[in-house]
């Protein structure tokens, strides 16, 4: 496995292969699995994502009472035909929210790359797959390209909120989604690299400051916003816009920012949103009653 994405891109250009072909070959060599075995495993993970999306659209509620059913609201908004951002973008927001709400509600999800950022990548895929008439195999290729880029980000920087903040989780999720989207749209490996760089740049510095230490607020809405960053970055790159900073330098910068970030902003709930007045009220209520009554919190505010 090559360490730097630019080297992978150069190799793909030289061999005239796509990113997913390269990453699939790496996986087969590393694991000793056949192509069929890798695809079957990926297919299982894809169907878990589909099931989670359907479950979330029906409306779920988390055990803490803090989150749930926003995907349903977004789906109704989409159906109303009033969405400014168009049906593909809004659809991606619906799916991303749905899946991450299912995660918060202890449903079964596939980490992409983590549980806390499990909505963004499938959100993008499910929104574009019909529009682009992607076959099942195309969808698996999308996941393979995303996963391969994720390996490179994880090894050069981080994909853990405790280590690098949310930029390492939702930031990485949006970045790998952007790269895979470019490939699905017929872009070159180099354009995938630029899309990844642009998406990650837009989320650099994002802290991990979850209310009451739970993977709910603001995690779910960041998954939702993550799809928009991913898709807009892919479109910039497809239009020919280039990242002025080379992709591997952006990834390295993310890792460095993560190391510089205070511990209070890395999944400890000791800073940021987690320490706001309302968040502290919620945390106290959770500690006392094992449940957060959102209505009582908003009444207390006024």
């Amino acid at each position, binding site marked *: *496995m090559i*360490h730097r994405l630019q080297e992978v891109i150069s190799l793909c250009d030289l061999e005239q292969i796509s990113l997913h072909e390269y*990453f699939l070959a790496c*996986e087969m060599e*590393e*694991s000793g699995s056949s192509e069929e075995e*890798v695809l079957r*495993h*990926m297919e*299982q*993970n894809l169907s*878990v994502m589909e099931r989670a999306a359907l479950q979330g659209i029906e409306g779920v509620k*988390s*055990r*803490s009472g*803090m989150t749930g059913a926003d995907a349903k609201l977004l789906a109704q908004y989409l159906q109303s035909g009033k969405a400014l951002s168009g049906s593909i973008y809004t659809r991606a927001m619906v799916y991303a929210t749905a899946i991450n709400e*299912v*995660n*918060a*509600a*202890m*449903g*079964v*999800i*596939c*980490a*992409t*790359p*983590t*549980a*806390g950022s*499990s909505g963004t*990548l499938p959100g993008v895929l499910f929104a574009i797959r019909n529009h682009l008439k992607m076959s099942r195999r195309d969808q698996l290729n999308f*996941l*393979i390209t*995303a*996963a*391969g880029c*994720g*390996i490179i980000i*994880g*090894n050069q920087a981080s*994909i*853990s909120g*405790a280590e690098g903040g949310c930029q390492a989780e939702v930031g990485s999720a949006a970045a*790998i989604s952007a790269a895979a989207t470019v490939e699905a749209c017929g872009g070159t490996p180099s354009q995938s690299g630029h899309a990844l760089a642009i998406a990650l740049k837009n989320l650099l510095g994002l802290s991990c400051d979850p209310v*009451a*230490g*739970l*993977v*709910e607020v603001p995690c779910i809405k960041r998954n939702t916003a993550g799809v928009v960053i991913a898709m807009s970055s892919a479109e910039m790159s497809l239009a020919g816009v280039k990242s002025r900073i080379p992709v591997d330098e952006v990834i390295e910068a993310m890792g460095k920012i993560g190391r510089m970030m205070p511990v209070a902003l890395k999944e400890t709930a000791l800073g940021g949103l987690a320490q706001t007045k309302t968040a502290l009220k919620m945390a106290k209520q*959770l*500690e006392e009653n*094992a*449940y957060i009554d959102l209505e009582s919190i908003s009444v207390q505010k006024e």
Partner: protein
Amino acid sequence: MSVYKSLFDIIGPVMVGPSSSHTAGAVRIGLVARSIFGNTPEEVHIVLFGSFAHTYQGHGTDLALISGLMGLPTSSEKIRQAYELAKKANMKVTIESSNDPTEHANTADLYLKSSDGRTLSLRGISLGGGTIDITKIDGFDIHLSGENPTILVFHKDQPGIITQVTGVLAKVNINISNMEVSRRGKGELALMLLATDGEIPAQTMEEIGKIAHINQVIALGALNVEPDFISDSDTKEEYSYDPQITGSN
């Protein structure tokens, strides 16, 4: 220094949410406890420390530990109904939060009891990403990750026992990847942990159980095998991590 090697380190694992450390890791601690105990205990007392104590309700850490104790895999949809399932399985559960300081933020102590008086106590910590470390079994200080097949041998602290056990393994060509021994005192009860590269055949377990001064031998399978796919079948999930136990007294 590549931490991530496989595509499935990024797209995966399949698990119940919301947190790999507070949920998936907790299921695995419960699974290891169940495997060592041998079956579903009649009574369980769980003590939670640190971040586990503060956030267990929101993360479902309690549900996860109980589910593991009943043999459910980390991807089971049924984890949410753990209390109802425990009731059905006649497993009495009590939960306690402790403010006592521990070395690691995500720590749980489990006390298992069966109706015939058998007990097991165990401390598990969740290191993140679903990785765990069992640091105490019945008061013995050890380290058990569950990642490799492992043999637990409870024996009297006596010269020559280790050689005899490793001799049996050598005979069937099983390689030991890690080994640890902890004892109550000189000549008293000891616990030997042998992590191996392959699963241990039942016959080999029996042979080890026959060695003099060995009280009990337990074989634990590797935990890191992801279930092939989420199964709705009760029985398949229920027994997927069951151990083989042999022993002589």
